[in-house]
């Protein structure tokens, strides 16, 4: 009973931890980008201020918006939050880590994305439609690539449960595996696309012809916009955590170690997150955004990488076990 409570406590910590650090991670990325561009940049806590400002402002809702438009931000945030709470971050084997395996994680994110795309179409403006249409096109390539990456990892570890995958990779002998390298490249491309980062989308632009994510959320304001932004920041944390959990799980507190190992695990996790955010910033200043219709080829590349990865995993599986 006591152990259950401890694990539940750990799960609750993670749930609120991801929520608390998400705006900060976005702030770090923006700061790094600014410094690379020789700008001072906003302080790292700026996203927190923005969120509070947005929440305090009144919401302006279009006259012909439906209930879906108003309720979607809550649902999108809830879906993304649950997904982020279930990815192993600082410790594996928390209370509910098992509830959603890798496939369920993809589906939870898919539900959030579908609701966001629907919300973009609700008011009936051309920009909302453009954003939703492009988002779903990107998703048709990014989601299968991500599924294949996760299936590759599941094959390598023999389980679709993310904590077990992480533990397997910690304990397995370190060898260079081609399939894992391919999977990593594919997952990074997917992460860039899903988080609307350069070169697929530019989070800092409102240029009509190139918008994807920003076009979908154009009609949102006030608290609704705050929730959408929060969900986007959570999603970034989720993807960095996922990459870290699958490819650099070292330092994560193991399942049977108990709460004593959590502070170390948390420190390592935060360092990895900050590094990931900084790398993302560096990447974004070093590359230009591509045309929307080149995105298909870019993500098609991710799909092919992921497919090669799973093919190799299938073929070499016998040798490993």
């Amino acid at each position, binding site marked *: 009973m006591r152990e259950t409570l401890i694990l539940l406590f750990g799960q609750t910590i993670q749930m609120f931890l991801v929520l608390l650090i998400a705006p900060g991670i976005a702030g770090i990325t923006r700061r790094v980008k600014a410094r690379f561009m020789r700008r001072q940049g906003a302080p790292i806590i700026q996203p927190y201020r923005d969120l509070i400002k947005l929440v305090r402002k009144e919401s302006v809702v279009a006259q012909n918006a439906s*209930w879906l438009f108003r309720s979607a931000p809550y649902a999108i945030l809830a879906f993304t939050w649950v997904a982020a709470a279930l990815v192993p971050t600082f410790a594996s084997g928390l209370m509910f880590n098992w509830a959603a395996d890798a496939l369920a994680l993809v589906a939870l994110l898919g*539900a959030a994305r579908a609701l966001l795309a629907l919300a973009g179409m609700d008011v009936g403006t051309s920009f909302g439609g453009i954003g939703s249409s492009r988002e779903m096109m990107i998703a048709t390539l990014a989601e299968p690539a991500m599924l294949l990456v996760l299936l590759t990892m599941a094959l390598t570890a023999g389980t679709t449960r993310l904590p077990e995958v992480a533990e397997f990779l910690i304990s397995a002998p370190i060898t260079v595996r081609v399939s894992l390298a391919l999977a990593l490249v594919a997952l990074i491309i997917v992460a860039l696309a899903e988080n609307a980062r350069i070169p697929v989308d530019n989070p800092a632009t409102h240029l009509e012809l190139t918008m994807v994510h920003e076009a979908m959320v*154009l009609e949102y304001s006030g608290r609704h916009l705050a929730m959408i932004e929060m969900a986007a920041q959570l999603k970034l944390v989720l993807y960095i955590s996922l990459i870290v959990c699958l490819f650099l799980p070292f330092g994560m507190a193991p399942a049977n170690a108990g709460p004593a190992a959590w502070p170390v695990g948390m420190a390592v996790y935060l360092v990895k997150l900050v590094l990931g955010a900084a790398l993302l910033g560096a990447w974004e200043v070093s590359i230009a955004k591509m045309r929307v219709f080149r995105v298909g080829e870019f993500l098609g590349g991710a799909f092919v990488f992921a497919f090669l990865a799973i093919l190799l995993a299938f073929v070499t599986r016998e040798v490993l076990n």
Partner: protein
Amino acid sequence: MTGVDYSTAPQLAILLSGILLYAVAAVFAAMFHRHKSALAAVYPICIIAAAVTAGASLAALLADTHSGFRLPLGLPIIGLHVKLDALSAFFSLIVNLGVLTTAIYGMGLDRDRDLSGRVEPFFPAYALAMNLVLIAGDAFGFLFSWELMSLTSWVLVVSHHRDAGNRHAGHVYLVMAAIGTASLLFAFGGLAGASGNYAFDAIRAVPPGPLVSGLVLAGAIFGAGSKAGIAPLHAWLPLAHPAAPSHVSALMSGVMTKVAIYGLIRIVFDLLGTPVWWWALPFLLLGAATAVLGLLYAVLDHDLKRVLAYSTVENIGIIFVGLGLALAFRASGLTAAAAVAMAATLLHCLNHSWFKSLLFLGAGAVLHATGRRDFDGLGGLIHRMPVTAAFWLVGAMSISALPPFNGFVSEWLLFQAVLAGPQFPEPILRFMSPAVGAMLALAAALAAACFVRAFGIVYLGRPRSNEAAGAHETARPQQVAMALLAGLCLLGGLFGGVMVSAIQPLLQTLAGAPLPAVGTGPTPLSLVAFDAARSIYDAPTIAIFLLISGTLTVMLVHRISSRRTRLGPAWDCGFPDPSPLTQYSASSFSQPLRRVYGSTVFGASETVDMPQPGDNRAARFTVRLHDYAWELLYAAPARAVLRMSERLNALQFLTIRTYLMLMFSALIVLLLIAAVWF
């Protein structure tokens, strides 16, 4: 096989009484088809019959009933066999739940507007025929009921016969149904072999040799697969299913395709003997191609009901992949994996029957309210039909395999089965399973895009026509029918673990083993595929998590936010346009997808006709798509048949002398053949 003393289990007796009630309803409606007040009783009778039959089949499924008897009807000597086992019971449950909900929907139909005088006699007859297919215990009964099912549904397809498009659809459907039945006849001929005993028990006792079983497999896949809508034989389906009245479309797409899958399972998993690994190849290849192709059609189409029909094609592809995996695993002796694949297949049959019926009923409500089913005339219906919109959203999320709804459960199980692929001893299967997994992943993502588009264009935004602007909410019985199906979609999504344990005996029969680790998860409701350390999907826990995080979000935001809301005009980057035509349309939504996938799959080409400056002509933009399946497999043979019949037409205008000459030479040729042969 005469004189076998079968017992008649109570489940079978109740089931038969329900089926008899369908027959009564059909005869009653046929006799009184001119009396509107009498016809009003048809759907209530169907509801009772469906409830009785569904209850009996659920009981038979849970009790793993094996029961049957023989009637002195049908073929001489063999008689007519009636039997009920867990497989029949499972599909009978699908059929009768479908009939139950669509009959409730039918009660709310507008009698004059929906032409139900033509529909009502054949609706129970159609339900009756589908039930008869499932309880047939011999090839004659099976094919007879199969043909009855095709014909009754054909009548329903052409019930709006004044529309030339519907007549064309009915024509293509009839031809395809005839070819499919002929192919099944061929398959059963191979199964019965030289002894010619068409009873299933006799067939099961003597499995055919390897060559014959290959031919039977081909015949079954062609016959039952064309009925189910497998590509590239699918082209009739998006014509015929939407042409019928919407509640019949729901039955055809949601339920009749499952009866076809039942036929396939019955032949391949039950009658054909021990499976060989290569049997799985056509299932995997056709299924994976169908899954992706069906959705690409759907995502580029402009007609609400046709989009749903194409999505049925996709789901049949997923079911085929599941069947192929189950066959391959069973042939390789991996019974646990076979059970996972089979569970995914069966659950997907059930799930698809629910959400596809729901979506078709919703489409019917839209069609009734606006008179339109083309995307370019719809929009903004969430304001005018809020109930339908909410239920349709549930259906759309279920079919896109999004948690916590039921589509995800079968999809999850199927991916777990794919992950067992490296255990295949055959290298071809080991290479194919990741490819199949990739196609399934692609299909899942495309499904989400397809249904975001469909829901967004039909229900969201601003109305694109006056009809859509003046739409009204649908009648109460129709709302009830949709509510039932939406509830089933949610329950099926939450309690996948319970549903899997209910079909354990069936999995034992079909896959050779039950699911290995049902009920060993962290909570009693967890769905566990192989073992709890390997994979768990716990929908109730996730749902509770979603509830908690949703509530927390609402509380947090409302605690610190201003909660002030102002209504204003849409922002639209500062340039809102009052015309609804400036919204994104269905074709603009699918344009990026068409650019990415269309050029290879459909040979899509775009032409822009831009007038020179000073020219007042309107600019034109045209997109050309090729439906290769139709062009190569339907249009080309049809042209060949037409050409040949024109040639043969000359035979009608010969002289008597030439006719006698022809007959005489035919006789000589036949005699020569007989002399050489024997």
